[in-house]
């Protein structure tokens, strides 16, 4: 039995099947008679990936020499978690989509693109060489454009255009960095890359290009503007996979490409960490000023990925801290992805709630997930944050003091941000919309996994963290930011409710910097050529739909409170 299993794991076809399965199901859409199957089989497309992530040992890889420039697939170090995570989120989002998209005009198109994106995303996780990584990354990027613009409103179209423009810039930067790495190291295989013989400057340039190119996907500050737009414009299942699964594609790229453990870059690492830290705080600040709950979540992603970026910076600074930094990154990514994807599903569910019980459940889920994201005791967030803290201790010396202060402050920020989200997304009775059973099932499953998975899996990693948690210090350290956040939030809420006409928070439209640039662009536009004009307009114009969306949010019936 085990022999058969081993043989399967060492067969190229098995690994290729992970990538091909979604495409195969998508191809059912070609024939009218099998069209429905493409839709209803969507939740099963990630099943091979799911199975393999649970059975394959780390370090397995297979070569498919004829493919691309010599494809190698398999599970690299730490990638098991990502494969499981990606497969779970795609499976449940697929299940959700079956019900949620059923009355959509272009339902079939959505599913086809959903499946192609899934194929790319799974490929990114198991790719062991640059060409395969780049290929699957590109497939994912371009297919997901169709998911973002699915609603076909002018808001969605603009979001899609911003997303695609930035993604393409990311793609070409990634291309440049890979070419540099491949030529310097003489190999395209991640596990064969050695950096010790390489002159420092080109290596640094290649790494900087990789940080920027992949940073677009992981919402690096300054390259994050597409996130709030795309997350809020996309249909909910697409937002869930964007925020849960695809957000980690950039991170995976960083882990594979950057010369961790083989370089010591105090300055470059510090810059990366600083940008990450800035993202963590600015994400919170901008997020609080959002009026659409999905945009709040998107800015929260910018903030959370900022923290992960800090870890990446630490890893580049000090090779010694590497193992613990890596496990912190992986735990954090696991926690954030599951919680964030669940939040998107719950957010939509709370808007379509019909029954009282459903509403209470969704309210409870919002509270639970928000607490988790803020790192309250006994949530997955706490595990992740404890891991991150211990990583920062073992990281570079100067940074420990800074991080010891700033990490709890960022938790406080997250708590505030999630309070804002809870207020915006709080379930209110609406006219009854029948919610499909698959939608409910997917939501419940994902919320359940988000709150439990990190405790049971990956087994070894959370053990040490659990020991940490048992002594009371960690508990207090994780309680006070949440408490403080909740108190500040409540006070603000009460104060603003007392003053009528209501004082409102200042508003920053989703895509922050872009809206500012659009004013500048309008100036430029007046005296620029038609060509330039059209291009800039398509990226930078604050669409009337931006305000449409916020108006719609404000008009939600029977609002309980408003900040």
């Amino acid at each position, binding site marked *: 039995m085990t022999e058969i299993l081993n043989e399967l794991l060492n067969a190229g076809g098995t690994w290729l099947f992970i990538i091909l399965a979604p495409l195969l199901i998508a191809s059912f859409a070609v024939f009218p008679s099998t069209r429905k199957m493409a839709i209803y089989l969507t939740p099963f497309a990630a099943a091979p990936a799911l199975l393999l992530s649970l059975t394959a040992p780390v370090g397995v890889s297979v070569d498919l020499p004829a493919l*691309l420039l010599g494809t190698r697939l398999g599970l690299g170090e730490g990638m098991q978690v990502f494969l499981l995570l990606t497969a779970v989120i795609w499976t449940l989002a697929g299940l959700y989509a079956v019900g949620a998209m059923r009355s959509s005009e272009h339902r079939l198109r959505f599913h086809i693109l959903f499946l192609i994106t899934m194929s790319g995303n799974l490929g990114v996780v198991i790719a062991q060489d640059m060409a395969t990584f780049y290929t699957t990354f590109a497939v994912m990027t371009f297919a997901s454009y169709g998911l973002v613009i699915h609603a076909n409103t002018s808001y969605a179209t603009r979001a899609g255009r911003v997303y695609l423009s930035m993604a*393409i810039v990311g793609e070409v930067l990634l291309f440049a960095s890979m070419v540099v790495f491949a030529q310097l190291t003489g190999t395209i295989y991640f596990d064969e890359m050695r950096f010790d013989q390489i002159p420092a400057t080109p290596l640094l340039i290649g790494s900087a290009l990789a940080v920027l190119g992949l940073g677009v996907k992981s919402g690096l500050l300054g390259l994050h503007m597409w996130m709030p737009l795309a997350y809020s414009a996309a249909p909910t299942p697409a937002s869930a996979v964007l925020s849960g699964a695809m957000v980690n594609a950039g991170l995976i790229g960083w882990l594979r490409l950057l010369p961790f453990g083989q370089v010591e870059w105090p300055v470059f690492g510090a810059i990366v960490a600083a940008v990450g830290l800035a993202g963590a705080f600015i994400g919170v600040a901008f997020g609080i000023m959002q009026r659409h709950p999905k945009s709040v979540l998107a800015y929260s992603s910018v903030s959370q990925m900022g923290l992960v970026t800090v870890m990446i910076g630490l890893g580049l600074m000090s090779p010694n801290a590497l193992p613990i930094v890596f496990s912190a990154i992986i735990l954090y990514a696991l926690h954030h992805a599951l919680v964030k994807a669940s939040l998107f599903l719950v957010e939509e569910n709370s808007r379509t709630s019909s029954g009282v019980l459903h509403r209470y459940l969704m309210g409870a889920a919002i509270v639970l997930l928000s607490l988790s994201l803020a790192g309250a005791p006994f949530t997955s967030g706490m595990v992740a944050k404890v891991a991150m803290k211990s990583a920062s201790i073992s990281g570079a010396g100067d940074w420990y003091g800074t991080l010891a202060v700033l990490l709890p402050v960022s938790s406080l920020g997250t708590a505030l941000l999630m309070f804002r989200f809870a207020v915006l997304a709080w379930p209110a009775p609406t006219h009854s919309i029948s919610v499909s059973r698959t939608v409910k099932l997917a939501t419940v499953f994902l919320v359940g996994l988000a709150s439990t998975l990190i405790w049971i899996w990956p087994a070894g990693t959370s053990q040490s963290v659990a020991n940490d948690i048992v002594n009371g210090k960690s508990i207090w350290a994780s309680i006070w930011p949440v408490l403080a956040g909740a108190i500040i939030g409540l006070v603000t809420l009460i104060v603003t409710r007392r003053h009528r006409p209501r004082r409102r928070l200042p508003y920053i439209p989703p895509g922050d910097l872009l809206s500012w640039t659009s004013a500048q662009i309008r100036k430029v536009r007046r005296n620029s050529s038609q060509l330039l004009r059209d291009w800039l307009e398509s990226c930078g114009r604050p669409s009337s739909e931006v305000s449409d969306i916020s108006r719609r949010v404000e008009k939600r019936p029977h609002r309980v409170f408003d900040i």
Partner: protein
Amino acid sequence: MNSGSAMLLVVMLSSLVPAILIFFLREERHRLRSVLNLAGAVLKLAVVGFMLWGVFHGKVYELTIPFLPGLPLHLHADALSMFLITLSALLWFFTTIYAIGYLEGAPHRSRFFGFFSLCVSATVGIALAGDLLTFLIFYELLTLTTYPLVAHKGTEKALKAAKTYLKYTMGGGAVLLLATVWLYQTAGTLEFREQGFLSAVADGNAATLTIIFVLFIVGFGVKAALVPLHGWLPQAMVAPAPVSALLHAVAVVKAGAFGIVRVVSDVYGIEFSAAMGLLTPLAIAASITIVYGSVRALAQDDLKRRLAFSTVSQVSYITLGMALGSPLAALGGIVHLVHQGVMKITLFFCAGNLAETAGVFRISQMNGIGRRMPWTMGAFTVAAFGMIGIPPIAGFVSKWHLGLGAVSAGQHWAILILVSSSLLNAAYFLPILHAAWFKKSDQEITDRELSLVRRDAKWSLLTPALATAALSILIGLFANAETSPLSWANLIMQREFGL
């Protein structure tokens, strides 16, 4: 005459004989004409396949025909020739099917197909030419045989475009003749040789060789559409779609690029020309062309015009690869000869389908066309993504090696050119795809009406487009396979650099 030279003759004659026969056919003998054409194309494919096997195993095919005293016509099949011949044989086959469908019911078909086959014969001659003189003769023949094709429609616009084409290419031809004669004077031989033959006569001739090099580049630059010699190409797109397809993918533009490859690698030699400092200016000219062509393409609303400017840009990848002076870059350039051909012919097939089936000529008319013609637009999408350089489509493989070559030659700036070209390609292709797939059609067509009109192009137009689109995926996806263009380009480079 041994079997090797017979093989060369068959390859030449498989398109030449049908051409001559077709000229004598009455206009309405459609079936016989099609049979002749297709039989020639299939025969050529078969022989080319056989020769590929032979060349791979080190066999040399040669044929000498007496021509001028002391200067015979010399045909010679090396790895590089086989590359272009395979491309032309394959794409001629697809284009013939396409043209038969495209011109159904059109006048002057005998004339068209006659010149069409002649044009292919000339391309084969260019590929097989073993020395510069032979090359030049077929190169000029190509000019003459494509003129009637560009002018085929006989409209004022077509005649004007054909005239412009002739002016440009004849001018280029004259410059080439001058360069060739001068080179013969200087070096005493014109025979292509791996790693070039001029390093032997370099002493004291540096200035002369530099000038001759410039003349060659200017001469070939006309057909290769190097800026500022590209003016004829966007005009020539008035030609019927199959002509544009062949013109942009295999015949004319490729002949120019192939000429540059031959001169750089087999006359001067890459290392020698790099040592003489000839390559950097060439690389700059290619880079300017790459960026300029893409920028101009952005502003075109006419689909074929946009594609034409895209060709201007893409063909210069080949020149850039030769000019970067590293084996890897040259590999990228040479493999792009085939990759660009397969992708670009797909785009022109699709443009023809759109025009023929839906009457769509402009990009602004393409809203929602993906719904009516999903297969055509599917093929178009694949080829457009390939042009941008997105894997797993062929264009990525070229770009990847060009990029590697740029780094290994220490010419990092070239990556910037590749990157900006990708961005520009995305900027002019993606809006087309968005309009076709996601925008609502301007005419309100219901599903019912849609099922009444013919949805997509007829099979004779659709099959070639789908085949070449599939091919551009396959040669990219299986780039590392032993039978891929990349592996063959590797073989060329091994022999070229004596590695």
